[in-house]
């Protein structure tokens, strides 16, 4: 297949894609999958809300929007998300500054990075469990240590605290590369020109970091907005938030339409955040072009006392995280936390016997979702970044949709779409696998596109002009180059398959259940030992798998996908 070289575009994207059977087949296959697992469920969800008895109706939505209590939970959700976004970004910035500007000793950096990883790979509820033990009315800290009586752990404060601790690592991992990319010499120059340290931070560092800060804030805002697990345990009844309300509306009252309408209210802010992040923040990154980086300056841009304060902040937060997880481990190893602290392995025995079905199902589902999600990510990423075909942009947008929306919405949409003919999938593993693939596989798309942007097209064109087909070129040239993105995608899909609950809580069945749902059940029954044991097990498995994928990545010597791409939403 000879092709004109150079940047000249083919006469028509359509004729070009038609001329390439491998391309058109993959595009058709992907469109089919996206139509079935992204577009169709969303349309069914909208139909359920707005199409009543064969006529367009806004009654369901109106009922939600005129109900003072539901409006309050919307307001609570937005308030919580804003606070978590702000606090988490500030904490993440503190960590990033300490790591990049204060010469954090290497051993401390390792400890911090390891501790920060914990909340990212934990199943939901883990910090919530530990919070109740520490700060409840008879908590280790509030009652035993401080002697406060009748302290109420339920409400905005503890939900905010727990979510901030869970999600600030996202901000840290987003901001660290941003700060690293700002040449410290620029700051040093400003400093040597006589500006005060505060002025340098305010007028040089901060403006350069603004897009990164905005990005971190939006990621945290979205994560908090979608979080269903933490508020379910910690928010209590005085601070209802939307995702929890939706869940109770559907599982408790079986009001699918009401729940769907409620979740629709969540859709607005979630989409706004997604579009903001995509079309504004991602384009506003500044690059500090300074030519060849000079010798690293010895002039510290951070005052000694600020440095001390940042170290203290990092040390305190890290200790807090370590303490909360140590508590979780302890709870999994004693008979009855708070009452009988005799050592026992009973809870582990329990999860590997009575809980074995959930563990087996979760691992099987994760094992299927992981490669499929990884493939989905690089395939869409590659096609969108490298190939010309009609509907390229819309494919990118649609494939990100399930990822951008809160899990509750996606779960309900799947439940509505696949519970009745023509496509009945509820009760199968396929519905859970599909949910994970199309929700978390999307994280690989960005990583693939970012990697491809660094690889010259001429490599592929050379292969093709030597006579290789598209498929061969993809397999022999492109695929090895984008493997890091593939592994990053694998990592995210695996972590999420082991830890997600917001969407799949609606999709578990008699034949297929999940560890996270078991944890939720045990939490509501207050069987904290088994809940803690499941959590420890999940964290251990995820740690091993992530270590393996990172090792594979390192062996591929491709510099590694950016750590932030391991996060997902």
């Amino acid at each position, binding site marked *: 297949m000879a092709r004109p070289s150079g940047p000249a575009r083919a006469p028509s994207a359509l004729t070009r894609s038609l001329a390439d059977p491998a391309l058109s087949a993959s595009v058709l296959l992907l469109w089919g999958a996206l139509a079935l697992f992204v577009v169709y469920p969303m349309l069914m969800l909208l139909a359920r809300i707005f199409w009543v008895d064969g006529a367009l109706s806004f009654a369901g939505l109106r009922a939600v929007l005129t109900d003072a209590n539901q409006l309050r939970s919307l307001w609570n959700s937005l308030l919580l998300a804003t606070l978590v976004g702000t606090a988490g970004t500030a904490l993440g910035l503190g960590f990033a500054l300490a790591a990049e500007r204060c010469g954090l000793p290497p051993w401390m950096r390792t400890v911090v990075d390891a501790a920060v990883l914990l909340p990212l790979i934990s199943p939901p509820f883990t910090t919530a469990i530990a919070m109740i033990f520490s700060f409840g009315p008879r908590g280790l800290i509030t009652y035993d240590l401080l002697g406060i009586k009748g302290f109420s752990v339920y409400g905005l404060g503890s939900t905010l605290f727990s979510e901030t601790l869970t999600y600030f690592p996202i901000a840290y991992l987003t901001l660290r590369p941003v700060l690293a990319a700002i040449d410290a010499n620029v700051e040093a120059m400003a400093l040597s020109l006589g500006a005060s340290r505060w002025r340098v931070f305010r007028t040089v560092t901060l403006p350069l970091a603004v897009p990164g800060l905005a990005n971190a804030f939006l990621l945290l805002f979205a994560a908090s907005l979608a979080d269903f697990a933490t508020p379910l345990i910690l928010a209590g009844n005085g601070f209802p938030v939307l995702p929890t309300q939706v869940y109770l509306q559907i*599982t408790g009252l*079986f009001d699918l339409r009401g729940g769907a309408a409620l979740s629709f209210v969540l859709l607005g802010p979630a989409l706004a955040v997604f579009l903001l992040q995509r079309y504004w923040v991602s384009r506003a990154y500044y690059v500090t072009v300074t030519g060849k980086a000079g010798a690293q300056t010895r002039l510290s841009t951070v005052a000694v006392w600020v440095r001390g304060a940042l170290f203290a902040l990092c040390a305190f937060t890290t200790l807090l995280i370590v303490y909360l997880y140590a508590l979780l481990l302890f709870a999994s190893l004693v008979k009855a936390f708070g009452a009988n602290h005799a050592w026992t392995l009973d809870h582990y025995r329990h999860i590997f016997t009575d809980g074995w079905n959930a563990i087996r199902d979760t691992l099987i589902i994760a094992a299927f979702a992981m490669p499929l999600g990884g493939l989905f990510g690089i395939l869409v990423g590659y096609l969108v970044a490298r190939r010309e075909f009609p509907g390229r942009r819309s494919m990118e947008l649609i494939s990100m949709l399930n990822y951008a929306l809160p899990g509750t919405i996606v779960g309900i949409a799947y439940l509505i779409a696949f519970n*009745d003919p023509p496509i009945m*999938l509820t009760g199968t593993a*396929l519905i859970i696998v599909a949910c994970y693939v199309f929700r978390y596989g999307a994280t690989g798309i960005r990583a693939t596109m970012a990697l491809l942007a660094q690889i010259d097209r001429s490599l592929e064109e050379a292969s093709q002009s030597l006579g290789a087909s598209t498929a061969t070129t993809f397999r022999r040239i492109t695929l090895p180059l984008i493997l890091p993105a593939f592994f990053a995608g694998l990592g995210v899909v695996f972590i999420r398959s082991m830890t997600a609950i917001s969407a799949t809580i609606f999709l578990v069945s*008699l034949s297929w259940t999940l560890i996270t749902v078991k944890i939720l059940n045990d939490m509501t029954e207050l069987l904290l030992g088994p809940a803690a044991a499941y959590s420890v097990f999940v964290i251990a498995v995820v740690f091993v798998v992530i270590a393996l994928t990172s090792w594979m990545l390192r062996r591929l010597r491709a510099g590694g996908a950016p750590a932030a791409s391991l996060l997902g939403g």
Partner: protein
Amino acid sequence: MKNLVQVAFVALAALGIAPAAAQKTVNAYSIWPENWARPMFDEFEKATGIKVNFVRFSSGEALSRVIAEKNNPRIDVLFGGPVETHAAGIKDGVFESYRPPAFARLPARFKHADGQWVAIADDPLVFMSNNKFLKEHGLKPPASWADLLHPAYKNTLQMADARTSGTAVTRIFSILEVNGRDEAKAFAYMRKLRPNVQLYTKSGGGGTLPVGLGQAGAGIFFIVDALDTKAKGYDVSISFPQEGIGTAAEAIALIKGAKNPEAGKKLIDWATSPAMQAHFARYKINFVPAHPDVAVEASLAEVLKGAKIFPIDADYAGANRKRIIDRWIADVLNLGS
């Protein structure tokens, strides 16, 4: 690449088919927590060779699922749960009438006239309070509904959320009964109680451990959960209000359109007979047996002595359930803070 995707999808489709049953099985949603349901189902398998495949849901969730799956039932039997749950399902037509051999022996309140549900146990509500908490505040275990309004309980009670839990629904109907079904009076009481409630829990037993640990001062629970907490070694008192408190029959029902109706009926035969209910005491499950031939275990009988307990009228509760829960959500739950 394309082939790989296709192969994967075919494998996935195969995975989607529920595992074929080699052995005779019966599928159930259990409203009883796993630690009670599992030994019963193991005994059933030992006795009949039929394996029970089950998941546990709280009663609201279980009923919601059964109704949602009406056109394509996934289970054969809905096992356990306060009878008002089953009563509420009747009007949705999700159950199949079935009269097991024990039917004739059961008193009227332990069976639906047409056999839409049959009782397997009786479960009275109780007050459970933390002894350390009582001592700190110089209180006696609550002996009337009014005792729970005492300001010392402010923000310390835990009880179940009516949106998901049958325990809560039984509690609310108890309060209605005590107030002569005068809804205005009953709801006035619940609104007064609201500031003392720290948390409405998703499941009925959700507050037992917090009360045991002293995270909460007291709560209203089914006796089976309360005695279980006590048996675990937590320092708690169990008491009954002098005005009386409701008891709910725990029921079992056959699902309409069940895929394994014969196995399902066998499970119902077994569960409604002394064959299962005699095992309660052995496994330290403090349900009151529904079948008259099974004696109440001695220590349980001791606790129940002198308590004023009345049954919840299943028809009245079933007919008014949704309306009362809606009112509870609007008037009581959302009152707080």
